[in-house]
């Protein structure tokens, strides 16, 4: 009798211990989504800041997710293929690549309801609007190897009937540098996003008024949030929760700072037709 009571007590202790000590293990095993982010053009410090704000924001939402920037696209693919990442925010140009097929765009960032970066050619001297031969254009390079990017840009200029014999490109870090270089006569033209004009008008209204916008040269779909097929990104419930959290981002101080730094003000649902005519 004593022995059986002792055995029962032992079993009780063992059960209690099992429940108690396993509880945190179960909690730790609760899935956490990794949202990998790759922006070839953002500098490290800026990414650190965005990461901190992004994760601070995610902590205020019911979803368990971490924003995780990577330094090169190869790392992004490896994380996606190994199942270590469920979602990715990556330049839309990668969607059309072979490995990009594993990405399912879900949301696209927008500014004033526009899901594209629109780049326009700006000149100071109107005569150059048709002929940029042996001239220098200031531009930011995004998502591509510079020489390839420059070749593509020259093709776009030629499609607009602009002469580009021996046209040179000056790479700058930010669009405002390109406009300032033009304002100070350091280059002959600049290709910048339309949003940069508003900022220049504030900094240097006289210069802004002296510029001529020749036309839209490029239309790039902003980097979408994509679910990674085959992993937890394929889970419709988890994706719906993430989508809801992203759509509410602008309502939080940290979320708002992330969005300001990324020059966006909302996330909208992706539609396949958004890819048409865009890079």
């Amino acid at each position: 009798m004593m022995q059986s009571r002792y055995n029962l007590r032992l079993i009780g202790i063992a059960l209690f211990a099992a429940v108690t000590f396993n509880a945190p293990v179960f909690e730790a095993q609760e899935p956490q989504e990794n949202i990998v982010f790759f922006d070839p053009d953002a500098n490290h410090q800026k990414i650190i800041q965005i990461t901190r704000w992004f994760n601070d924001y995610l902590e205020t939402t019911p979803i368990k997710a971490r924003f995780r920037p990577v330094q090169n696209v190869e790392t992004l693919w490896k994380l996606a293929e190994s199942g270590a990442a469920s979602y990715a925010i990556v330049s839309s140009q990668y969607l059309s690549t072979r490995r990009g097929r594993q990405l399912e765009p879900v949301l696209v960032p927008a500014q004033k309801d526009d899901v594209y970066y629109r780049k326009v050619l700006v000149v100071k001297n109107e005569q150059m609007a048709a002929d940029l031969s042996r001239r220098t254009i200031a531009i930011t390079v995004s998502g591509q190897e510079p020489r390839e990017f420059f070749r593509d840009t020259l093709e776009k200029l030629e499609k607009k009937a602009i002469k580009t014999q021996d046209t040179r490109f000056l790479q700058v870090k930010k669009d405002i540098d390109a406009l300032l270089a033009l304002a100070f006569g350091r280059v002959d033209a600049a290709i910048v996003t339309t949003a940069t004009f508003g900022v220049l008008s504030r900094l240097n209204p006289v210069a802004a008024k002296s510029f001529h916008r020749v036309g839209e040269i490029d239309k790039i779909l902003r980097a979408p949030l994509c679910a990674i097929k085959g992993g937890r990104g394929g889970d419709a419930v988890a994706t719906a929760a993430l989508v809801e959290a992203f759509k509410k981002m602008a309502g939080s101080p940290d979320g708002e700072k992330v969005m300001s730094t990324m020059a966006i003000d909302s996330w909208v649902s992706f539609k396949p037709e958004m890819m048409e005519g865009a890079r």
Partner: protein
Amino acid sequence: MKPVALRHRWIILVATVALVVACAPAFKNVENVTPPPGASVDLSKRVVVLKSSDNPIFDAVVETYLGQIEHPVTIVTMNDEASDRAIAAKLEEHEPDLFLALGTRAALVVRDHFRQVPMVFAMVPAWKAHRLGERAQVAGITMESLASFDFMQFKLAVPDLRRVLVFYNPSFSGPFVKSTRQEVAGHGIELSTVPVAGATDIERAYREYKGDFDAVWLHSDPTVIQSRAFATLKRLVDEDGKVIISSVSDKFAHSGALASVSLDFPGLGSQAAVLTQRLLSDEPMPTQERIQPPIGGFLTVNMEAAKRVGLTVPRDAFPYINRIIGEDTPGKASEKAVEP
């Protein structure tokens, strides 16, 4: 008179040093970069990138440069121990059509030994003193940015920036400050200039200055940018609820200045590539285009410093700030950004 043995020792020492210098390899490293497929330029023209040392700061310039240049390029790192003559002799073997000289020593070797070869120089602080701009075949990028350019960047963070105070030592930067005052006036900046004799003179000069101002501007005057002078200025502007802006280095923004605009090294590489393309195509260039200030700048903004004076950095400026330090939200921990 020295004993014979001692004299011999000196001779041996001098001879050994001479032998070491003579035998030292001219280059620390040589790397050939083949042109990319589909290059659209004359591939018979060769470029030599000459680095004064293996300082990694040069590599950031070279990386962007190579991303744009389609000619065959040889990258050479000079050996500190080799003589300039030995380096020049070895460089001749590469038969360069143009040099990109990075740093003072590289620029001087090219200036003195390759008078007929075009050169683009960058990262040479005293280029005027070295008379680098005298030859028509020489182009270059100065270390000093255009003050108006920097002030436009500062205005991203401080839209109402108008009255700026600058301390300077006339023996170092008198003419520069005078010309800058005129230059920035055209862009709506009223620059009040206060001469100082030395770092210890700054507090007196600050307290005697009776005008109002929005910010104190630091530029590359060795008297004003030394740490003691900065500490004094920081204490004084903090007491008055003002801010410091810097055109020197982002370390000042990390130390409490509101904003800094510093050199963007990859940008220098692209600028050097454009100058290379122009020289190699024999395009005539006026002097002001041959020797030019850096285009673009690395803007760092310290949100803690902004918060201290109740300044709100406009949200539409955020995408154009290269580096943001600290937090501007009350109650949030102030955490400085660090490299990953």
